[in-house]
């Protein structure tokens, strides 16, 4: 059994070393990347909130984080478009109806143009088109909001879309 002792000691030694040795261990911790990325966007808190709420963010690179945000643009646009369509069905003043119809067109554009081109741009490796798409989503939301003469029934949605889009554009900019 004489051969065994050095080996056993080695193993016991490693045992103790590794119990203190968290630094050499490869991490699956993306928290730092998310923080660094969000610091370079116009709204750190919202950026963190959205990214952390998506499980994919834990092992995403910056492109992946941008894609998550584009997904959020998409889902918000869908939700808002549904709300717009509901509002249109109700009785409305003509000016309100006109504004709502215009908003429907704007949010449709986000869904058929901005989102697909941003996804393609990020996946295929020409991210500047995703920056354009995100910026445009903010424009569409703002234009929708400005179409209401009186109170806008979509202020929360438009502001949210603008904020999300601005964050997305800022994340994409980090890829350029």
């Amino acid at each position, binding site marked *: 059994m004489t051969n065994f002792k050095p080996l056993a000691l080695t193993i016991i030694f490693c045992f103790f070393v590794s119990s203190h040795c968290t630094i050499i261990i*490869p991490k699956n911790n993306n928290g730092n990347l998310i923080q660094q990325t969000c610091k370079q966007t116009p709204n750190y808190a919202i950026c963190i909130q959205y990214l952390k709420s998506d499980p994919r963010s834990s092992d995403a690179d910056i492109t992946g984080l941008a894609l998550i945000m584009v997904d959020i643009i998409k889902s918000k646009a869908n939700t808002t478009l549904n709300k717009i369509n509901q509002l249109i069905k109700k009785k409305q003043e003509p000016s309100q109806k006109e504004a709502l119809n215009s908003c429907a067109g704007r949010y449709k554009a986000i869904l058929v143009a901005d989102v697909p081109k941003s996804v393609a741009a990020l996946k295929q490796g020409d991210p500047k088109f995703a920056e354009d798409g995100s910026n445009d989503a903010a424009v569409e939301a703002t234009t929708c909001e400005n179409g209401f003469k009186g109170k806008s029934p979509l202020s929360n949605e438009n502001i949210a879309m603008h904020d999300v889009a601005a964050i997305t554009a800022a994340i994409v900019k980090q890829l350029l």
Partner: protein
Amino acid sequence: MRNDSPYTPLLNNGSHNNNRNKEIHLIVFGFLLLASLITFSGYIASNNNVVSVVPHADVSFSDEVTKTNTVVSRGVSAGVSEKSNMFLSAAGGNKVVGESESFPWNNTMLSWQRTAFHFQPEKNWMNDPNGPMYYKGWYHFFYQYNPNGAVWGDIVWGHAVSRDMIHWLHLPLAMVADQWYDSNGVWTGSATLLPDGQVIMLYTGSTNESVQVQNLAYPADLNDPLLVDWIKYPSNPVLVPPPGILPKDFRDPTTAWLTSEGKWRITIGSKLNKTGIALVYDTVDFKTYERKENLLNAVPGTGMWECVDFFPVSKKSENGLDTSFKGDDVKHVMKVSLDDDRHDYYALGTYDEKKVQFIADDLKNDVGIGLRYDYGIFYASKTFYDQKKDRRVLWGWIGESDSEYADVAKGWASVQSIPRIVKLDKKTGSNLLQWPVAEVESLRLKSDEFKNLKVKPGAVVSLDIETATQLDIIAEFEIDKEALEKTAESNVEYECSTSGGASKRGALGPFGLYVLADGDLSEYTPVYFYVVKGSNGKLKTSICSDQSRSSLANDVHKQIYGSVVPVLEGEKLSLRILVDHSIVESFAQGGRTCITSRVYPTRAIYGAAKLFIFNNAIETNVTASLKVWQMNSAFIRPYHPDQKR
């Protein structure tokens, strides 16, 4: 001794096998313990945000607070991109006061936006110019195209031909995304015409895994002057991202030029962190390449270099030079498209073939940090040597500056600039001149001439011309000499983009023309000069194109583009403007400074569009002479076999 039982107790020294077993078991157990400890520690660490492999960075929370009740732009400093910023400031303002057009973009307005004599496909999205060349009697133009919609995506190569670079005929798509090495995009490329008559096309493919590679293609039939069909080299790709270059930072191969060794040399843009670089490769057959160690050029802080272009210009002649031209009296031009800011920059310099180096004449104005081809919307540009007319011709992609909603509604997006000849400005020696190819003048119809108009300070004068949406304008302006002498010196640095535009009056400017203006001036686009008398009595002149009042719509760009333009002793201020519906191309001092803009009026369209001359300078009259031609359409249309022209 004989073992009667099958299992010998471990204490038996004589059984070497069993001893080994025991050791092995303990070692294995030990390692399992070690492994489980490692895994456990890893698990703990991954849930611990504080411990990190990276040097500990500042993780303090930003205390930026969103104003949730307003839609005001937070500005560039807070990270909001310039692009969304420029819409919001207009939109926000218009909601409260002033006229605005909340629901524009009816069919009348949108269909007016299509140009009459600029290249564009019949519908859908276009971007970079590709592989321009002259071959067997035809000018060829290829372009990035989306056959499926009015936004970028599904990119393939469109194709068109022309006898004169103005009257284009659409041909079938030249290349589609049908190979693994370009299935995610048949991206930008350039043509090289070989002395033996071969036509080489090198282009970037985005592979099925979105890696950027370079591919070779060539015409299926060199005897077809229309070069309709193309073959992709079966062993593509011919170049893949080299070590140290990321797979998405390797695109847009240039036209090749001959080295003294008789090899062909190309350059491809890329980046290392934030330094834009140009990689160089030599080849004999365009199939195998030798990477040159040196970078043709590198400029820190400029980011990814797209659509690199590299060519010689003559110091003596007014003609162009073949890309391979060697000789004295030559300067080289290096041009890059910056991914970061969507602008095209160039620098003049010298090329050392042996060292594989381009050195800018003025390093402070190296590529990416100095001169731009165009101070408006002009990107991914590319030149080619036109051997028919011995000139170098420049193409530039002119994108839209309206909303995606409008692009989807109108069913198309983007046009190309009118092709421009490019040559060295012999008078300054430090910049290029660009000028629309002479063939555009074949579109000129009737003209109106105005000689020595004296425009007083504050005057806005309507020019009586028939229509004002398809124009070629050549104008000259002069400031009063006495006013120039009397005016106080100023150390103001006039910057078009922050100047407030044509309505901000100064001593010696702004003055110029309002294009695409309606009679009430509710919409108008000033293109103007602004002169400042500097602290040494020297004049500094800027040329600007002002979109801020160009449209009542809220979802279009309202920026003011422009730059300083060199004006030499004895020169009058000269301006050429091509107006073609939603595109305005302006050329100051014979093309020393160019500005292309997109304009989307809601009222100043069709017959309602007018042309004005104006002088908003406070201290000087302006004397102007101009000639305004109505421009015909180029009738760009699909090619038909029985086409004679």
